[in-house]
């Protein structure tokens, strides 16, 4: 019963997402994932050169490809084949291109694990309450004023 409900929910969600799609937003989205070939270094739909030799033609080709019913990947591949890999605003051809996406995530995950491990290791080494502080000495040997200073220092932002 639960599985059936879940399936229904997934179908409804997908329907909502798919029904929301319209060609103009697709044109806009894909057009923002490609560069203009004129060498201005701008996204295709943002190239605003007077008399740009490429953007109008490319925009026309994009409209044609979308009207032709190709998938996003197929359209991107078509442009990459015609203009070269640098026409894609991000590396999406698979293979070594995947490294571009994986590396930041891998570093982020490794760093998170590293920080977690660091915190765990610090806690394992005895917490570090006031008495364990090597710099400040134990509470017992602290003068009142010194203790007050330390409390202020360690609690004030």
């Amino acid at each position: 019963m639960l599985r059936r409900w879940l399936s229904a929910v997934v179908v409804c969600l997908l329907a909502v997402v798919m029904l929301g799609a319209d060609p103009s937003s697709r044109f806009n989205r894909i057009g923002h994932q490609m560069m203009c070939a004129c060498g201005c270094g701008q996204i295709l739909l943002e190239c605003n050169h007077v008399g740009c030799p490429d953007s109008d033609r490319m925009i026309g080709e994009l409209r044609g490809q979308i009207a032709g019913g190709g998938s996003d990947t197929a359209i991107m591949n078509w442009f990459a084949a015609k203009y070269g890999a640098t026409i894609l605003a991000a590396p999406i051809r698979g293979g070594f291109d995947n490294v571009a996406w994986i590396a930041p995530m891998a570093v982020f995950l490794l760093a998170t694990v590293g920080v977690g491990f660091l915190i765990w290791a610090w806690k394992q080494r005895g917490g570090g309450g006031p008495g364990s502080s090597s710099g400040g000495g134990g509470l017992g040997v602290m003068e009142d004023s010194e203790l007050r200073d330390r409390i202020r220092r360690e609690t004030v932002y």
Partner: protein
Amino acid sequence: MQLHPMPEFGSFTLLLALALSFYTLLMGGVALWRTRGVAAGVDRQGDRLGETARRAGIASFVVVSCAAFALVWASFTNDFSVSYILHHTNRDLNTAYKFSALWSGQEGSLLLWAWLLSAYGFVLRIRNKVDVRLTAYASTILAGVQVFFLMLLNFAAPPFAIEPGPRALDGFGLNPLLQYPEMVIHPPMLYLGYVGFSVPFAFALGALMMRYPGEKWIHITRRWTMVTWLFLTCGIFLGAHWAYSVLGWGGYWGWDPVENASLMPWLTGTAFLHSVMMQEKRGMMKSWNVWLIFSTFLLTILGTLLTRSGLVSSVHAFAQSSIGNWFYGFILIVFAVCLFTFFRQRDHLKSENRLESLVSRESSFLFNNLILLAACFTVLWGTLFPVLSEYVQGTKVTMGAPFYNRVNLPIGLFLLFLTGIGPLLAWRSTSLRSIRRNFVLPGIAMALALVVLIAVGVRPWAAGDDWQSNLFSLVTFTLAAGVITAIASEFLRGASVVATQTGKNLLASTVLLVRRNTRRYGGYIVHFGIVVMFIGIAGGAFNQSHEQEMGFGDTMTLGPYRLVCQSFTQDSKPEFDTEYALLDVYKGQKKLTQLAPEKRIYFPNTDHAQPSTMVALRSTLANDLYVIYEGRDVDTDKPIIKVFLNPLMNWIWIGVLIVVAGTVLALVPSLTRAPVRIAVAEPSMAEAAIHHA
């Protein structure tokens, strides 16, 4: 033979400055070596030698100032015998842009860098009484950096090089895109930020070299770091605002390598400003902090390398030149010195305390650093990946906005989350009761915001292909509501306590509260500014644009606005040809304003003809109506007008102003001062004891 008195004077001053800086480096180093391990005043000859090095450093500022003056003078007097002046100015350039020619090309901007560095060095050296020995170390290290830049200016990129042949009657002029008021202040601001990080770097390296006891050096450099960070922040956002107002593509940040180069040290600098508090308060993260400031400095040099070496393609970059090799060498030397010093002195960097709880201010700083460095790595990775790809695959790839936006989005949201919860956590450990008390109000605010946002139509599931950007906006707005409530409740809670203590009203109590701890509440205001900026950035999910031909009387509708073309025409001015349209803007039946988007072609009769977009902008708190004149249709001869409707754009610029205000406030001394961790012995005495032991 032609005489060139001013350029020759400039060249001479640069050579003299190099000699003085080299003297500061060499004799400063010798003096520090001679006086190592002895208290001040014992080795009088060594002290005197150190003093001559300091004075030579001060003199180098005067001499580099003369060089900068000579270049500005050459610009104002139209001395086109100087190659740099010929290529970056002309007779018709107005006064402000003639002055800004100083940093509009490679040689001039390197001179600006050297001058700012010498100015920072000057301030540092005349304020040496704050800690004579530490300042001597920092001064010597700064002199090393200065020697590098002066060598560049003398041997690799001389700004006073004479153009061969007869003197030209007029110059080539300044790039029209740079002829914009913000461009007069954006580069100096950015350079003040870049160069400024040399100072905390020099102090950190010096403190490590001399095994400076305690954390007083952090206290000394705190203001330097914050001022530098402030300049870099202003520089980055002035650049973003310039890109938005001038380049005419409707955006403000294109993830260009040069933009990235300025963002990376900002990210690590921000991380340093946070994590250094852990060292200041609890003697933790010493090695980490040292490497953060080393990295920040190295990233500023890397940024300079990226703009000048042609290593990566950028629309901003200066012409490719062999100057990149100098930077590679310098980066290697700096890295080697940092690494050597670190390994030699690493026992000095042991933490004095340990983390006691996962739920504490310390751990929030750790995660804050993690996030900021992850963002920095992403930017660095994206900037250099095309080079790596070319090396591995033989083909370059483009790393544009889609890559950065997708990878940095979750990172940015996590950072926003930490901005809110970090300050609510206590140092050492936060109790469950405290968490409940501090998080109830922000939690309620977030829930309310979520409901309201969905009710007003921010529904990712109904946004079709735009669901990702809608979801980002929904999460951002919701988190922003929580963070703003958290910040406001912190002010309110503190002010209530002060009101109870003093009997003042809530407003007066808030002012007193802030004055008592400007650093803390200035920090909150900076966080508030960051949240406001995030709201502005999230507004980008609802950007709309439309493009059409607009002849006389034609109408275009976008969002609540209706634009009616009143006329279009063209004109010729001495410096440029222009085409523009006059568009009346209506909201409903009410005429709001008239906009005149324009396209200019500078130097139309020369080989340097360059188009420039003059954006017409109507800006309100709710949205920007951004209109550009794209050109004329060759068949119909009608102008093609592109209109962007950018919601919440002003929030970004307002957020920056709040960040600036918060940082300035944090720089103001508090009424009550928090104690600083200072070792029992004075630095020089402690050092003597170490060496005698």
